[in-house]
């Protein structure tokens, strides 16, 4: 029988129960995230089916190269995150910290590129609202596209920002030797979150950037 260690909170019997509970907790949280993005995806599906031409025309104003590059950056960050988790599972402190820091770095690159894209949209007056200007047919429907573009990528970017903060905290904890082979669950949980954010982008990229490119 395992006795509660110093890393086991009082409400848990042992480390296994704690690990299972927090892992399940994160998965359940991700379900809520799926549903939240699901509301946006439902909106997207409805309007895209109603206004296919306007959506395609509006999509051409997004920079597919930057989008593709950002996709690769984010996939890379998922790899470094997975490597960090693997290092933590093996109790390798340096590998864990290095993996987390690389993930943070790649995440920041993604956010930087996103910020550049946003700034560009401001210059092109493609930010929905009173100053929106779209040169083409069905400007209001293109505005719908950009409303959804900003809502979806904005919510995604917000998740990235939170993720960078979480991973930063984990990196500090890891550097201080808080984790071990026996206790590294927080890193796995943080990893689950980061990978989920990656998955959202895997769908956002083709749905927003690659419409009607042919």
């Amino acid at each position, binding site marked *: 029988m395992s006795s509660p260690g110093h890393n086991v*909170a*009082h*409400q*848990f*019997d042992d480390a296994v*129960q704690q690990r*299972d*509970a*927090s892992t*399940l*907790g994160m998965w*359940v*949280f991700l*379900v*809520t*995230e799926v*549903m*939240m*993005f*699901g*509301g*946006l995806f*439902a*909106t997207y599906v*409805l*309007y895209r089916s*109603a*206004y296919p031409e*306007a959506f395609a025309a509006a999509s051409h104003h997004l920079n597919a190269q930057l989008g593709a590059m950002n996709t690769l950056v984010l996939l890379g960050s998922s790899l470094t995150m997975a490597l960090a988790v693997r290092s933590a599972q093996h109790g390798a402190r340096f590998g864990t910290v290095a993996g987390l820091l690389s993930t943070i770095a790649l995440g920041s690159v993604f956010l930087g590129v996103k910020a550049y894209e946003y700034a560009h949209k401001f210059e092109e007056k493609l930010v*929905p*609202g*009173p100053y929106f200007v779209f040169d083409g047919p*069905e400007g*209001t*429907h293109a*505005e*719908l596209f950009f*409303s*959804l573009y900003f*809502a979806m990528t904005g*919510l995604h970017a917000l998740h990235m920002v939170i993720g960078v903060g979480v991973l930063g905290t984990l990196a500090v904890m890891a550097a201080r030797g808080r984790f071990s082979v026996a206790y590294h669950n927080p890193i796995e949980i943080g990893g689950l979150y980061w990978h989920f954010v990656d998955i959202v982008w895997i769908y956002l990229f083709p749905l927003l950037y690659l419409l009607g490119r042919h």
Partner: protein
Amino acid sequence: MDDARPAQRKLVNAMEPGASRTNYLNADYGLKSWLLTRDHKRIAILYLISITLMFLLGSFFAVLIRLELLTPHGDLVQGDTYNKLFTMHGIVMVFFFLVPSIPAVFGNFLLPLMIGARDLAFPRLNLLSWYVYVVGAAFTLWAVITGGVDTGWTFYTPYSTTASHTNVLTTAIGIFITGFSSILTGLNFIVTIHQMRAPGLTWFRLPLFVWAHYATSLIMILGTPVIAITIFLVGIERAFQLGIFDPALGGDPILFQHLFWFYSHPAVYIMILPSMGVVSEIITCFARKRIFGYEFIAVSSLAIALFGFLVWGHHMFTSTQSVYAALIFSVLSFAVAIPSAVKVFNWTATLYRGSISFEAPMLFALGFIGLFTIGGLTGLFLAALGLDVHVHDTYFVVAHFHYIMVGGALMGYLGAVHFWWPKMTGRMYSEWAARVSAVLVFVGFNLTFFPQFVLGYLGMPRRYHVYPDEFQVLNVMSTTGASILGVGYLVPLCYLIWSLWRGPIASANPWRAAGLEWKVASPPPTENFAQTPIVTEEAYSYPVREAEVV
């Protein structure tokens, strides 16, 4: 008088050695010990106080609504004021009272006790959920104080996004934030029920209260994120003048209704399922026998939660939704009524050959069965397509959902308050006063809302502050009933607060109920169980009397 004896013995029990132990209430003192607590029982008390305040606020709006409707010509308040009153009544009651009521107070307090755990899986998250609730409530109160909001609690677009000149954005932020409180609570419950059950406590040994909360939590985590994002879209549409739901800019106002009801129909089950769990506990306790059809009641909770997500379109039969979608939603709505019927039949059958006594919690539970039955049956009227076209958006609907949410959810809540009050506070209330209040609530409620069924079929639309003269008699009846109902709610507030100082000390198990929560002292110690209990028997194992004829 039967009931005098138990009360006396409770006093005697209070003198037992256990009574003077430290418990969660006296373990620590000072405001900080409450505001930074991670004890699920203290967080439950924090919720109890907050939702009671919100209930009083919501009731205040209800009083003004009923007074205004006393006369047909809108003599008391202007149209704009009336519109704000019913909107804020709905928002406060739904999002800030009914949704958190039983889960956040009694679920929080009882789940760990019932499953033999020391706390919920994530105590800090639990405290966070209360703070999130308070911040959301603060935004909403700010919106109320600075002029209110007039969209109806349903926030239908494009009225809410383009036409209304009231504090929609502030209220939307408040509801958005409060949604996360609900999500965190649901997440915590699900993990707790899965991972923290005491050894031997298998799923089919769980009290039905736990099953009901599991089902409720599923709805909270699957539905609430959708209302959050929907309200968020309404917020940004207003803030940045977008056209997400505005038909003038190509938006689809019906899409808003789909997204809104995807959460808000299941939200009705968030309100009623916990009450059903409470009633299951109370009936079996006061009938002194294991509940009839345990597995069916347990599984029907899950069925309600899951199928409840397939029926939202029955709020939209006249919305210009396609007839084919309407047919699908109608047939599914009839189907989802069946698990509720199964529960009612099983509760009734539980009474058979019981040894029934009628303390206040039992009166509330029996009242629940009566009112919920009426509410459920009238729900069928609204699921029937051809009939719903006539009664949709009339007082028939108002009466129906008040029978579910007030007659059902609130009766269950009051039953829970009376049943577990001794456990939470260690004090007994006046049984006599409690019985009077149960009767007042039952009578007052029916007098308030039954006439509204008639009004609805006559054709009085909801949200009318001026109405044709011929509807006045029924409205006067309704307001009269509401006064009785109001007294019925105020009386418990008085005797319960009184009991905190003057009530007899409660024993660990004043109702001689089965269940782990009754095996710890009243009030329970902070750590709940000195040793993790090991469960070897099914729920509700009351000692069995030999049947005369089997």
